[in-house]
């Protein structure tokens, strides 16, 4: 165990159970990584179900995939990657104590996240309009109604879980922006921003997998 007793031992941000502020920071970051591992397992269950059913019903999955709007999905992918960039810039701004830049980049991330969710609402509305929502109202012209419904079940479960994580992220972002406006962060205290950044990037990476698996499988060859 490294000696934590030096440096910021008396930092005002240190909680009582820690010997030093560095130890606290390390614990928080380690905890966030551990949390993200649990998230990988959580989404992993969905990806496993997706893999099994896609192998079982490849044709129905391709047909289902073709009904999705590639342009909206592609646009949202670009939006999310852009939000990862602004988030990374926000972390850098916090580390370098640039208060104004921090608020701007956090706000930009929040904006992009909200745009993503807005587009998702349009896409979901489209599914309702075309009766592609699993359940008694599900309509499908081809014979493979059951497998097609499975595709849309997984589509809603996976993108829904992802969107839920986005909503949580947007709420936390709002809190972080308020804290940033009160100048709570700076070179001596940026762990919450850094750890939230890890979360945000994780949610983005999930989408990077979801986009090809859901939108692109009908379009190769």
């Amino acid at each position, binding site marked *: 165990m490294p000696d934590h007793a030096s440096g910021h031992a008396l930092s005002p941000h240190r909680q009582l159970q820690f010997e030093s502020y560095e*130890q606290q920071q390390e614990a928080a970051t380690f905890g966030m990584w551990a949390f993200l591992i649990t998230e990988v397992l959580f989404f992993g269950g969905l990806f496993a179900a997706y893999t099994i059913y896609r192998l079982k019903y490849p044709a129905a999955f391709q047909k289902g995939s073709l009904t999705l709007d590639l342009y909206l999905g592609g646009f949202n992918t670009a939006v999310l990657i852009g939000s990862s960039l602004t988030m990374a810039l926000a972390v850098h701004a916090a580390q370098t104590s640039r208060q104004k830049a921090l608020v701007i980049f956090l706000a930009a991330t929040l904006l992009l996240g909200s745009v993503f969710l807005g587009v998702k609402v349009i896409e979901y509305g489209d599914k309702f309009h075309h009766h592609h929502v*699993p359940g008694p109202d599900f309509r499908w012209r081809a014979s493979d109604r059951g*497998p097609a419904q499975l595709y849309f079940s997984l589509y809603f479960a996976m993108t829904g879980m992802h969107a839920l994580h986005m909503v949580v992220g947007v709420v936390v972002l709002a809190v972080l922006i308020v804290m940033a406006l009160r100048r709570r962060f700076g070179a001596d205290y940026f762990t919450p921003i850094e750890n939230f950044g890890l979360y945000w990037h994780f949610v983005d990476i999930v989408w990077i997998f979801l986009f090809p698996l859901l939108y692109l499988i009908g379009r190769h060859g």
Partner: protein
Amino acid sequence: MQTSHAMAEVPGPAPQALDYLNADYGIRSWLFTIDHKRIAILYLLMITIMFVVGGVFAAAVRLELLTPQGDAFEADTYNKLFTMHGIVMIFFFLIPSIPAVLGNFCLPLMIGARDLAFPRINLLSWYVYMVGAVFGTFAIVAGGVDTGWTFYTPYSTTASQTNVIPAVLAGFIVGFSTILTGLNFIVTVHKMRAPGMTWFRMPLFVWAIYATSLIQMLATPVLAITLLLLVLERGLHIGIFDPALGGDPVLFQHMFWFYSHPAVYIMILPSMGVVSEIVTCFSRKQIFGYTFVAFSSLGIAVIGFLVWGHHLFVSGQSAYAGMLFSLLSFLVAIPSAIKVFNWTATLYKGKISWDTPMLYVFGFIGLFTIGGLTGLFLAALGLDVHLTDTYFVVAHFHYIMVGGAIMGYLGGLHYWWPKITGRLYPEFWAKIAAVNIFIGFNLTFFPQFLLGYLGMPRRYHAYPEEFQVLNVLSTGGAPVLGVGYLLPMVYLIWSMRYGPRASANPWRATGLEWTTPSPPTTHNFEEVPVVTQDAYDYPAMEKKVA
């Protein structure tokens, strides 16, 4: 310090230092506490209530099985009784039992930390548990649930008319409390150890809790998503587990057991950690094979993830998958056996004393060995076809979960009780209870091995008359076991007020938790200790006394 000066002049009882229990008495000081020791007490309270509730259901099940006819309860009621027994005991008692109570209390003390890394998340996990308990209670009060604790599809999604969704949500929510506890423990072990507390100086209980936390963190999220899909399937008929829509009900079994088999190790590993602590203390010897015992915990955690398919031997899984899962299930016996051999080797030529915690350890070693060996019977593909869904399976997992996990829990509770409460319990009654539990347990569950071997299936409220003698024996054991569990509840509560005060280290045990006063102060250590020795240096301790 004017008060202590004044006290010194007045003859009477010595002034009490402030400890974590008497630091504050208000109800808010408990409900909003972030002290890991107080949160452990909150958990202790809740899981004891849950244990009683689950025990009442078990008693009703045994009552019904006293006679071959289904006369005490309707078949449907009986299905609800064993289901709720399983849900309450597994999700609300066994899984949180040792980690959330003894782990919460002891882990920071044992590694020389002032608290867990995230005290507020620790409190949050208790509240999440409480929300899960509300859902579980609702499912019970609203009329119960009859799917079995495993919620197998398609029965749970299409056929069952009972409160499946509240019960499943209860399991889903309480799972997050498990995840948070496991995550907190892992970060704490990595980042909060006192100077000199290297990984291989950690007490083996900490190793066991660490391995348990890994499982909690990695397996429980899969349960969460599985149960969520189940709720969606039942509520919206999305088809994931519905064969009529192309879904596969066996996928549910795979996903469920991917969590629930490792969950068995969530229940047993902490008990093994407790046994390692107690067996060395009451043999006055260093543990035999420290690194083997430590790594066998990790070994069980890792292999435990690869054996879930042995629950699906007769579910239509491919023969090759069955063979592979059978082999892996045999492999997981190796680290378990390593532990048993090392404990017995620790006993060899030790100065063994027969205090209550040690009685539970002897009980654990014997019963766990029987439970583990019969597990090998079930891992053998051919034999399993005969024994699947019989009372042999019921007896097997009760030997692990009750004979193993609860024995360890009670042993640990007695061992650390003086530290937790600052009081000693009445040794005589404690010994009576331990012996009582051992006899009652074997009387209840050993006949079930025979019943299962003879072919009595589980989960039926009636049975052929030829099985009655063994069932009467089993039902006769249940009240003996019940009295054994009731006794500690009475004398432990009694001891909190009337028991003699405990010294800091009543067992002359090694370990940092015994260097703190009993009960410890709110912040555990005035000065963070510096560790210079390996764990369990009992020979040196003995020399010091001599």
